[in-house]
């Protein structure tokens, strides 16, 4: 990867972190409502994955979607405005934190029913297969989604029909507050793909370069072979499941241990060691992000509320 691209990845990861940290403050200040699930700690996963796709490849994810939104090029302004429910939000204030999408950026949501978007992902790929193109659909979901029926129906049809889907399980160790080994019959989630005779592998999700390499290889396979692939990414969320999580299910030492492997810290070290960039250059990116996020908050706060007549808009196309 070229220097510019590497620095862009660094920029994206820091941007996700800072947008969400500011988002958390605004949530606590009562300016953001509903549920908000932070991606902090998992930034390397979506950043590495999205960097590995062609623009024509689709991505669809669950409700922890701010990272994917920013990685696919939805602006911090549009993300922040959506969090605040404003008319300028990417979903015009009608979706909120869990429902961000952009057809233009090939980002297909933002879906809030656990596992519910997996059959839809198979459908996106079915639509592409029907159109006889070789687009790949990247479908991201948590470890918790692999215990629900949708998962199994979706994987099964992707295999029998030879759909181009890269299934990406972000194993962040907990489905809400229930540890993987308390909810799943197998700890190694990728084993579930074996039941569908699907090629699979596991990768360290705290290292963006490892995610990128694994994703590139997997996408190449999916495209060339017209077969689905299952990638399990081992990661960790530093914050609670959502903003109202008392976190009784894990010890602070465990969180601290994972924080020593901070994905942004690891990547920063990598860039410095490979002399891709100086500390000063990286600090400049951090400062740039700070400006960008300040502007996004300003934009969101000064944006108009949706008009009351928009209540009835877009219930139907016709």
């Amino acid at each position, binding site marked *: 990867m070229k220097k510019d691209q590497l620095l862009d990845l660094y920029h994206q990861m820091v941007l996700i972190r800072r947008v969400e940290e500011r988002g958390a403050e605004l949530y606590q200040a009562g300016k953001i409502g509903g549920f908000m699930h932070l991606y902090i700690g998992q930034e390397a996963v979506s950043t590495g994955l999205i960097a590995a796709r062609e623009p024509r490849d*689709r991505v669809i994810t669950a409700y922890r979607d701010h990272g994917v939104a920013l990685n696919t090029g939805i602006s911090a302004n549009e993300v922040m405005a959506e969090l605040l429910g404003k008319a300028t*939000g*990417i*979903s*015009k*204030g*009608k*979706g909120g934190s869990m*429902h961000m*999408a*952009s*057809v233009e950026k090939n980002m*297909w*949501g*933002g*879906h809030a*029913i656990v596992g*519910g978007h*997996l*059959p*839809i*992902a*198979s*459908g*996106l*790929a*079915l*639509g*592409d297969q*029907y*159109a006889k193109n070789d687009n790949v659909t990247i479908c991201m979901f948590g470890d918790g989604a692999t215990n629900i*029926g*949708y998962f199994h*129906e*979706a994987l*099964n*049809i992707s295999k*029998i029909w030879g759909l181009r889907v890269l299934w990406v399980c972000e194993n962040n160790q907990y489905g809400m507050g229930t540890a993987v080994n308390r909810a799943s019959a197998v700890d190694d989630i990728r084993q579930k793909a074996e039941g569908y005779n699907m090629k699979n592998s596991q990768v360290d999700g705290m290292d963006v370069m490892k995610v990128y390499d694994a994703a590139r290889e997997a996408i190449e396979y999916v495209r060339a072979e017209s077969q689905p692939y299952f990638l399990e990414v081992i990661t960790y969320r530093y914050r609670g499941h959502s903003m109202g999580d008392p976190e009784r299910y894990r010890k602070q030492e465990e969180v601290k241990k994972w924080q020593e492997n901070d994905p942004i810290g690891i990547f920063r070290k990598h860039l410095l060691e490979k002399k891709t960039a100086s500390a000063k250059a990286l600090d400049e990116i951090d400062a740039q992000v700070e400006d960008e996020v300040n502007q996004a908050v300003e934009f969101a706060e000064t944006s108009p509320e949706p008009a009351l007549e928009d209540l009835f*808009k*877009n*219930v*139907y*196309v*016709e």
Partner: protein
Amino acid sequence: MAKITMREAISQALMEEMDRDPAVFILGEEVGVWGGTYAVTKGFYDKYGPDRIKDTPIAENAIIGAAIGAAMVGQRPIAELMTINFAFSAMDYIVNQAPKLHYMFGGQFRVPMVIRAVGGGGRQLGATHSQTPDAIFAHFPGLKVVSPGTPEDAKGLLKSAIRSDDPILFIEHATMYQVRGEVPDGEYLIPIGKSKVQRAGKDATIVTYSKGLELSLKAADELAKDGIEAEIVDLRTLRPLDMEPVLESFKKTNRAVLVEEGWKSYGVGSEVGSRIYEEAFDYVDAPIIRIAQKEVPLPYNRTLEQAALPQVPDIVAAVKEVLK
């Protein structure tokens, strides 16, 4: 005008739209090699091949979920549910995903999908395979629910549904595939969301749809023998509900009987009746009567099953009652 069966009308609609638009394809259980469990897609597999007539596993979440996804990226899938009772297995997609996607993402997504589902009782299939749960689906904004009562309407409405950019649940009645009716020659469309007077009359208004239309037409024939002229308004679409012809008729007759095959509680008749009271209270000359299924799971035994389902004499008696 040709006289054809409901089955032929639906098959013709599917075939004409598949011939017209290459984005249209069919998926579902046994739609292909088998030819459809109600033989609606008989011969389609040989004509269109496995890509356009897609046999699926018995997995309703996969069927409807995949149809939604394919629709989102520009195809026009028609998903067949072997029976509407299997819709409950895919309820999340039918009521919680498809109707929300256009609205929730600020208008970015479209879901031009039709779900064809076979509903209704009367075939001794037992409680889990005989339901008429149409009203449940009509509860959700964002979904359109269509249920025709004649071959002409079935063909014209299904063609409109396939061309629509909104998700549509198209409910066919399992005992009506052999019903024959006149169908216009050549291409025609019937707009979704328009009720229709299927029989003119001046004494009382019967509001119904689907199987209820068949029963109500027979009841009207009976009533005519006694000199009573019942007007029958066929809803055809449950959501969006077109009350105009209903209210127009009611303002003329001042009396109504509402006929549906589903359960009475929280049903189609409840909705239509409330709206008449809300919008035409001054015209009410007699309490409105609802004819519907008895409040039991449908039994297997034929006598018991028929006792639970609405029958022609129930409608005749109700019309005479509102005319008292």
